[in-house]
């Protein structure tokens, strides 16, 4: 056991920290009032990612020829830690960087890697995930969006739903059914679709938080070149699952949890109870410490997983455990915050009386959304039980 980083890494850490201190974007007041998908806000978010990229701090472990630096995972981990420490805003191209990017590195053709990966890093192209459909949520493999191969083009017809960021995304990684006669896991393919293609229409859906966070997307005879197929024809389920693992690790990131928890502790210092700082209240201390234990467990658990990755050990059901534990923990952190705020807990961002700009009631709802998105807690438990523990599967189809 050795928890120290070699000296050259510590030097690197100091450089990152100094850079962040100088370059972290200020958060102008007006920006918080802009809608989630307001072009000005998106533009600023892209600028931030670009700046971070140009400084050399985005997806450093990606191969050099695709815009990365071929750095080791430890270097990347240091950057992630420092971003949390500096409370840096999340990256707008996250789904590209953390989901489709790694999938393309694993399964993409050389042409796809060269075409797509660099622009993911620079935020020139934003990606969205076209998985869920009205009748295919937890049971993703029953998806029905159809793609027919005609010559060297796919013709896509169908509908996706809950597609986050589709209203401003440039590309979608999308699951389609290419063989309707095969068993459901076998007739699926993984396509990269240009969101500007004729025949695509997008309708934003308002989330319970009031934000246009996700969308319905329709495809009407949308033409997709065959060269945008990832992996083999009809073998997309395997590729899809690789992306899902990345998604679960992203949603289950210990760094997100640490950032949220740090904000909770700041809140506890800011709030008062019976004339004292809330953080001095024994009840609050108990709650914060109980959360700290869970947060710290996940932090060290992430180090352990980092080691497993470095040593090339199989990850098993780690992604599902991360997703399940972290999203539930994130939600519990927000509940603690609401209880600190008491009667101010439900004040929205529009209210002059909101604490932290109404952040907590929004996070309270948002973290529930993250418990559902990326596979619900029940689905993660099924994966842990069935694939992890080898328990018998639940009975599936009922006779009609």
């Amino acid at each position: 056991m050795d928890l120290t980083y070699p000296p050259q890494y510590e030097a690197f850490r100091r450089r990152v920290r100094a850079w962040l201190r100088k370059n972290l974007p200020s958060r102008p007041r007006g920006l918080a009032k802009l809608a989630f998908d307001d072009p000005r806000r998106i533009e600023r978010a892209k600028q931030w990612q670009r700046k971070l990229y140009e400084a050399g701090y985005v997806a450093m472990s990606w191969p050099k020829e695709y815009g990365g630096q071929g750095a080791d995972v430890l270097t990347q981990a240091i950057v992630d830690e420092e971003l949390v420490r500096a409370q840096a805003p999340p990256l707008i191209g996250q789904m590209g960087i953390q989901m489709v990017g790694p999938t393309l590195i694993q399964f993409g053709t050389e042409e796809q890697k060269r075409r797509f990966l660099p622009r993911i890093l620079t935020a020139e192209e934003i990606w969205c995930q076209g998985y869920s459909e009205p009748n295919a949520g937890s049971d993703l493999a029953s998806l029905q969006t159809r793609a027919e191969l005609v010559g060297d083009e796919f013709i896509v017809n169908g509908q996706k739903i809950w597609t986050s960021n589709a209203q401003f995304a440039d590309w979608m990684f999308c699951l389609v059914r290419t063989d309707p006669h095969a068993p459901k896991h076998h007739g699926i393919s993984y396509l990269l679709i240009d969101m500007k293609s004729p025949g695509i229409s997008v309708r934003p859906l308002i989330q319970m938080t009031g934000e246009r966070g996700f969308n319905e997307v329709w495809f009407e005879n949308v033409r997709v070149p065959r060269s945008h197929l990832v992996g083999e024809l009809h073998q997309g389920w395997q590729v899809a699952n690789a992306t899902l693992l990345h998604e679960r690790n992203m949603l289950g990131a210990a760094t997100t949890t640490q950032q949220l928890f740090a904000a909770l502790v700041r809140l506890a210092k800011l709030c008062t109870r019976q004339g004292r700082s809330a953080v001095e209240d024994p009840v609050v201390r108990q709650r914060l410490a109980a959360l700290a234990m869970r947060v710290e467990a996940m932090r060290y658990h992430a180090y352990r997983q980092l080691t497993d990755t470095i040593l090339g050990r199989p990850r098993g059901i780690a992604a599902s455990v991360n997703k399940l534990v972290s999203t539930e923990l994130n939600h519990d952190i927000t509940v603690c915050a609401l209880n600190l705020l008491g009667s101010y807990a439900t004040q929205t961002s529009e209210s002059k009386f909101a604490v932290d700009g109404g952040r907590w009631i929004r996070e309270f709802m948002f973290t529930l959304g993250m418990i559902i998105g990326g596979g619900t807690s029940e689905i993660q438990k099924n994966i842990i039980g069935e694939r992890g523990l080898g328990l018998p599967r639940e009975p599936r189809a009922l006779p009609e």
Partner: protein
Amino acid sequence: MNFGLSADQELLQRTARDFLAAEWPPAAAHAVFDADHDGYPRKLYEQMAQLGWLGLLAPVEFGGAGGTCLDAAVLAEELGRAAVPGPYLANTLSILALRQIGVASVRRQWLPLLAKGQAVVTLAWFEEDTAAWPFPLKARGSVGRFGLRLNGTKRFVLDAHVADAFLVVCRLPAGRAQSTAIVLVPREQAGVAVRPMNDVDRTRRPCEVVLNDVTVPRRSLLATGGQAEKLLARVQNAAAVLLAADCLGGAERLLEMAVEYAKVRRQFGRPIGSFQAVKHRCADMVAQIEPARSLVWYAAHAMDALPRQAAYAASLAKGHLSEVFSNVAENALRVFGGIGFTWERDLHIWFKRAQWNRYAFGSPEWHRERVAQECRW
């Protein structure tokens, strides 16, 4: 021994449920979430007045029904089940306060208007740090030659933006000491400023009310000292009981929505309600709601008949029911999955009402502490 509703109360429950199902469908509640709605559906309130519900707690001689707190709780449960917005709670609490005060002319003026739904009167009571009674008042009045002069800032004032008058709670000098006072202040009085306190639950409209050298005649002083404090304690308890009943109705509604959905939504070739994870979630909601209903009835009955237990029972009910409602709201959302997370679906209306109900008139923590105190632990 008869722990249950009377025939009249059961009739009220049925009537209210049927009426609100027809007159206040979810589409109406959705409309209140639109930005420019003032949250006061006047037509609905006119009908509720005609049915005698707005004056349920007003004495018969003032056009009310002279009902009990249990009657009001039965109605509040149905209002919660339908997520009815508007000044029902504000007015009902004002009726409770007004009917106990000593100034007959004020009673004669306001109680009939409130019973008929022709006025909104709201308590300007809580302040920056507290939204439950008792607390040390900062707002203060002084008695001068021209009457009473009031200064202070009131928060979480229900429906102040549509109010005709406020019952301002403040402290007054009484000799060398300070005394609690309740003062009637018309909305249009100079020096009164109202600002909205935007809440996620758009069916509730708390406001801030700032009183800046507001001057009213001496006869506006409605109650002082021990009388005012006792009255406020009773109003606090009534608010807790009515909100507990509201939570009960809301939780039941969410349970019904979740169960209905679990029966029709299919994944993996079968209704999701057939998965034990979903089925047990629904059963857990029932197991929370059913005993909780009895707690609401007990607390309402204590208000009517067991004054020494009223505070204790009110806190048990509000502290517990508000937790049950928010638990049920989360569980219902989980049953719905992605579709529950939308603005378009009905669920978020009750989900947000659960959050407001949780913290208004004392958070669960506040009520737990009071339970411990009432038990003399």
